């Protein structure tokens, strides 16, 4: 039988007790900070709460993925800012990964020029503050000629200090069908890949997966496109008044931020990729050669699967860094979440609420990226059979 005193001698009970005590302390501190801030804001006559989200924002936003105007609410303005953050982060992650992998492989190249260049890139980019790099990229963008003297790189595509203007396809019913055909094609390609794998595992013979999949993706939309009369009308940008009208555009702010974030993060990703590849013992390559595999197959089937399990965890934190660094956008005028939140906070005076919302949103984005990468990491983890 155990009496209370004896129970206290048990390591397990004491462990629980300490944890409960710690939790209580943490909660008490949090409660004190929050309630005290609220009381003091109230005694100073500062209004609190999230009611301001429903009010009219009254300010314009330079670029938006949704249709937004000054008469929309603060909530919508913040959503526009959030989407801008997500857009530049998503594009940045893709670009940084591609660039990072290339540079990482280049650092392992036996070609002296390529190798040295990659080393120079990594050492320079990683050791110069990102904010400085962003300002440099933005200054370069602003040094482009004015719209009236815009550079026409390719006919219809104009480069100026107002950004890049390019023609966009005028919408047509045929495009919708072609898109449907593309989706169907992708589904077919997935099925082909699965079949190919089963075929190989069952018979041990290779299956022409890649050509078949590419054909499945490309052929159906192309056929539908031609069948609907190949509707190809472009909305071309034309100079009018202060700027170009019509067509699509990418602003200098977005471009500078995207290039800055990608180039910077690629420097780190390159090192991660290099370390991942170096982590696979050379014997593995030799074993592959001994089996008669081609160098491409050795990389794809032997090196990469083993390198990935070293690469993916640190890669996750680079993706998180890139997303969080996108908040430096305020320095070069890209209307991201932080920029829009700051404006909202200033106009309403609800600084605590705005900062709290920003923190929660970044937390959610970061946890989502982490969650996805952890799932991917489990998939590529070494499976022992």
């Amino acid at each position, binding site marked *: 039988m155990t009496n209370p005193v004896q129970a206290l001698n048990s390591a397990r009970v004491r462990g629980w007790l300490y944890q409960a005590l710690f939790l209580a302390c943490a909660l008490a501190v949090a409660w004190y900070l929050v309630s005290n801030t609220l009381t003091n804001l109230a005694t100073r006559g500062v209004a609190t709460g999230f009611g301001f989200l429903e009010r009219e924002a009254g300010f314009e936003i330079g670029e938006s993925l949704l249709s937004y105007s000054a008469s929309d609410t603060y909530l919508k303005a913040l959503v526009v800012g959030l989407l801008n953050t997500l857009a530049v982060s998503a594009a940045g992650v893709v670009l940084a990964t591609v660039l990072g992998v290339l540079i990482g492989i280049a650092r392992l190249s036996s070609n002296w020029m390529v190798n040295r260049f990659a080393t120079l890139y990594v050492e320079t980019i990683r050791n110069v503050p990102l904010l400085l790099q962003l300002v440099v990229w933005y200054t370069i963008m602003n040094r482009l000629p004015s719209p009236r003297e815009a550079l026409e790189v390719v006919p219809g595509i104009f480069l100026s200090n107002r950004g890049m203007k390019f023609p966009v396809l005028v919408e047509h019913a045929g495009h919708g069908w072609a898109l449907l055909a593309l989706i169907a094609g992708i589904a077919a390609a997935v099925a082909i890949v699965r079949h190919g794998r089963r075929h190989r595992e069952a018979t041990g013979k290779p299956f022409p997966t890649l050509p078949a999949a590419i054909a499945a993706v490309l052929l159906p939309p192309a056929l539908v496109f031609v069948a609907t009369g190949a509707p190809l009308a472009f909305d071309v940008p034309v100079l009018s008044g202060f700027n170009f*009208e019509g067509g699509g555009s990418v602003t200098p702010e977005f471009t500078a931020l995207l290039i800055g974030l990608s180039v910077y993060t690629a420097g780190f990703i390159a090192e991660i990729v290099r370390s991942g590849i170096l982590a696979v013992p050379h014997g593995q390559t030799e074993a592959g050669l001994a089996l008669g595999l081609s160098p491409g197959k050795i990389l794809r089937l032997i090196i990469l699967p083993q390198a990935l399990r070293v690469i993916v965890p640190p890669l996750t934190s680079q993706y998180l860094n890139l997303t969080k660094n996108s908040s430096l956008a305020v320095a070069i005028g890209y209307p991201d979440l932080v920029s829009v*939140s700051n404006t909202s906070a200033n106009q309403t005076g609800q*600084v605590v609420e705005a900062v*709290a919302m920003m923190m929660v949103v970044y937390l959610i984005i970061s946890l989502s990226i982490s969650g996805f990468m952890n799932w991917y990491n489990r998939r590529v983890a070494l499976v022992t059979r």
Partner: protein
Amino acid sequence: MKSRLSALAIAATLSVSALALSGTAQAGATFDGVKQKGYVQCGVNLGLYGFSSPDDKGKWSGLDVDMCRAVAAAMFGDAEKVKYTPLSAQQRLPALQSGEIDILARNTTRTLTRDTANGLNFGPTNYFDGQGFMVSAKLGLKSAKQLNGATVCVLPGTTTEQNVSDYFRANKMTFKPVVIEKNEELNKAFFAGRCDALTSDASQLAAIRAAEVQNPNDYVILPELISKEPLSPAVRQGDEEWMNLVIWAFYAMVQAEEKGLTSENVDAAMTSPDPDVKRLLGVTAGNGKALGVEENWAFNIIKQVGNYAQSFERNVGTGSKLKMPRGQNALYTEGGMMYAPPMK
């Protein structure tokens, strides 16, 4: 980076000062607190020529700085007893709300929201300003109504963004804002041609033009002023004694101008027979006692800071690079809006 940090800093300051000051808010707390510590903690701009900017020796000057110096002169008889806290547009309201500063003299527009929901009280307007547009002279524009479709560079953290949106909406025009938080980066973008127009308070546009452009004739400030910007000093709500001192310290400078008292002739004016001058300079006692300071409070302001005209000309008028005309900021007797209530 700056903004992210400053936003965090604001949150941190707010919660920390909320901790430190819990339960001490009461009438007269600021007045007594300032008297006890022996100096005025004054929130100013990070550096806006003419209003508050430090020179190469770190000495602050400007129209807003003179506001704080006047309060210090009234309270301590010494205009130098001021410590300055340079604040960004985002930091300024939390800094005042949290008690970090005693008075905010940072070209801040008086608005209803700030006067109510944000917990501030405003003193009299020390500069009547309005938001305008600056464009390159090469564009040949004569009016802001010709700006349809323009790209406009805007500094955030003020009423500026909303004003420019309102103006374009009211005139059924469209524009693209480029919002950059740092003054230098914004100015650089504008002068590089990223935007067709730069919008800000007219006085700031003049200051930017004076500082950044070789030939001021290359850039024109369009005639339309699209907003009312009564730039006023602010204090926290809940200390009327302190607020009174700020209000009347400014009025003393206006009254001095009206009565022709300057820092040069104020010594001689002590023997003036004019009853208004006698009351202002404390020769006839009463005003000082009512405000809770020495009777020679206004004398000290005029002697050490000068009257409003002296402060204006020295900082933003003919004696400065800005060369702003008195305009709305002239005395009411000269067609302006500067008017001091009777000081008795």
